[in-house]
């Protein structure tokens, strides 16, 4: 039996069907990410597990126990919110002690747990500070410490890094993953950022319009999308209708085909390789995206996106003729 099970979960807001019969199993100790665009139902599912939302229909099992109707306070689940939600009138130490005092733990144990949690999130020396005197990153680490200090069965992270700048976000992504590995805590992370999901997760569940479109490891989800939504949301795939891909490759295709932009080879001279699909095109435009250049190429009136590493020697110009080649194994039927 799985550690967490969602059985046929349905959730309505009025006539709006937000969760459509979700069935999901999560194993103990996993770092699971619920990924998807805004309004797809991922946060609603997380909040249902926390007890902050009532499900209309279905069952939630945690560690063999049906918790569907239980109050949040009785579920022993920790949660970190997007807006930190720290108590402004309490110091870092008091924020951490709040739940432990409600549990009526002995003062010695409370002090011990707080000390340990502060050390894990590397906030030594900030125990007496108020949330308003801390930076966004520090506040989020306090929220994380407050979540883990309770030693919950599951830790829920509801877009905890969305309000933090890009550089700090990357370092916190690694910190969260390290803390998870260290404590072995079952963690469910909600995000709309596919890069974040790739970096942090053992398993990704891709949500779209109230259903799970695809589940798998980051590599599986990235390299083998099963629907056109999965292909477009993760990896910015080129998605071609069967007739268009047939026209480009000269081979008959029955289904839609998705091709990752970085798997398309580009050259100024014809490519000599028999087992790849070859084609010619004209560069329409190029955009710098960090260390990658994204080219938009016109191939017989069909637009293709191709990525190349940003090296000054190999930059193609707009309106330049290019030769493209695509390996058949990189054409994913969806």
């Amino acid at each position: 039996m799985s550690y967490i099970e969602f059985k046929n979960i349905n959730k309505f807001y009025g006539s709006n069907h937000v969760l459509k019969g979700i069935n999901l199993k999560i194993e103990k100790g996993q770092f699971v990410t619920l990924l998807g665009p805004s309004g797809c139902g991922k946060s609603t599912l997380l909040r249902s597990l926390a007890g902050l939302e009532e499900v209309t229909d279905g069952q939630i099992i945690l560690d063999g126990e049906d918790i569907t109707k239980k109050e949040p306070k009785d579920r022993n689940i920790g949660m970190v919110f997007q807006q930190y939600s720290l108590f402004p009138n309490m110091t870092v130490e008091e924020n951490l002690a709040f739940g432990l005092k409600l549990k009526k733990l002995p003062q010695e144990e409370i002090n011990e747990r707080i000390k340990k949690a502060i050390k894990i999130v590397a906030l030594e020396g900030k125990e007496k500070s108020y949330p308003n005197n801390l930076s966004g990153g520090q506040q989020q680490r306090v929220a994380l410490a407050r979540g883990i200090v309770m030693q919950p069965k599951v830790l829920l992270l509801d877009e905890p890094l969305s309000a933090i700048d890009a550089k700090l976000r990357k370092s916190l992504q690694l910190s969260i993953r390290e803390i998870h590995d260290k404590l072995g805590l079952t963690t469910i992370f909600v995000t709309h950022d596919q890069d974040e999901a790739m970096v942090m997760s053992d398993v990704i569940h891709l949500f779209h319009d109230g259903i799970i479109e695809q589940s798998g490891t980051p590599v599986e989800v990235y390299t083998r999308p099963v629907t056109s939504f999965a292909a477009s949301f993760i990896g910015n795939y080129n998605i071609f209708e069967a007739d268009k891909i047939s026209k480009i490759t000269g081979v008959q295709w029955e289904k839609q085909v998705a091709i990752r932009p970085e798997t398309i080879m580009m050259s100024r001279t014809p490519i000599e390789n028999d087992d790849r699909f070859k084609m010619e095109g004209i560069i329409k435009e190029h955009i710098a995206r960090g260390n990658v250049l994204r080219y938009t190429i016109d191939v017989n009136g069909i637009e293709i996106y191709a990525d190349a590493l940003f090296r000054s020697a190999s930059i193609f110009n707009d309106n330049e003729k290019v030769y493209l080649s695509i390996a058949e194994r990189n054409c994913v039927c969806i």
Partner: protein
Amino acid sequence: MDTNKKSSKLAIVVIIAYLLIPLVMTLIYSLFEEWIDILPRNFTLNAYIEIFSDAVFWISVGRTILISVVPIILCTIIVLLAMYVTYIYKPEWDKYIQILCTIPYAVQGVILPICVLALYTSVPKPFNNRIFLLISTYMIVILPYIYQGIRNNLQGIGAKKIIEAAQMLGASKFYAFFRVVVPNIMNGVTVSIMLSMAIIFGDFVIVNTLAGGHFQTAQMYLYDVMKKSGQRTCAVIIVLFLITLLISACAFFIQRKKKEEA
């Protein structure tokens, strides 16, 4: 830049002078026997000695404090409970509560106490008791200020998320609201409370209509003194001003101390 600073300072000085000049003049008038020419003559503390030795004055001040503090405490508790219900369980009721709490703005002045009198004079005890009517009426008068203060502060601190965070740490909704959210909004609510205090302290119309001669408050004492002596009237105004100032200072001091302790 310098010109801007200078003009800002000048504006502040003008505002302070505008607010203080009447008060200073009242103080000077209360401290002298005559003020016919440019300068006042014959310094005296007689007006103050007279009112300080008048037991009626102190009883009136005590009554005013009573009918100010009780409605404020009751109104704050009732609005907090109403906000708890609307915030946690029935957010869709908020717009109706808002309309309800704004109505007293429209029925101020003499209309409210007359309506209250007309409605409650024939009802059984204790509902026709004058003190009861007075406290209840003041609760209605200050309702918009207390409600708006609490509502704005609840929204300002993101109360909903804080309650959810407390719930996840093992607190009930009720505990989270009153032990976590309320202490966080009290600093802001103090301003509404002070405003309400000032409104009740300065009221004459409602207390005179509802209680008449049965229940003399500071404002009614002032009204009586006005008929007898100009100096004493000014002395009463100054003393009432100082009492209000003292109460406000105490409230802010307690808030500040609580914050420091927290």
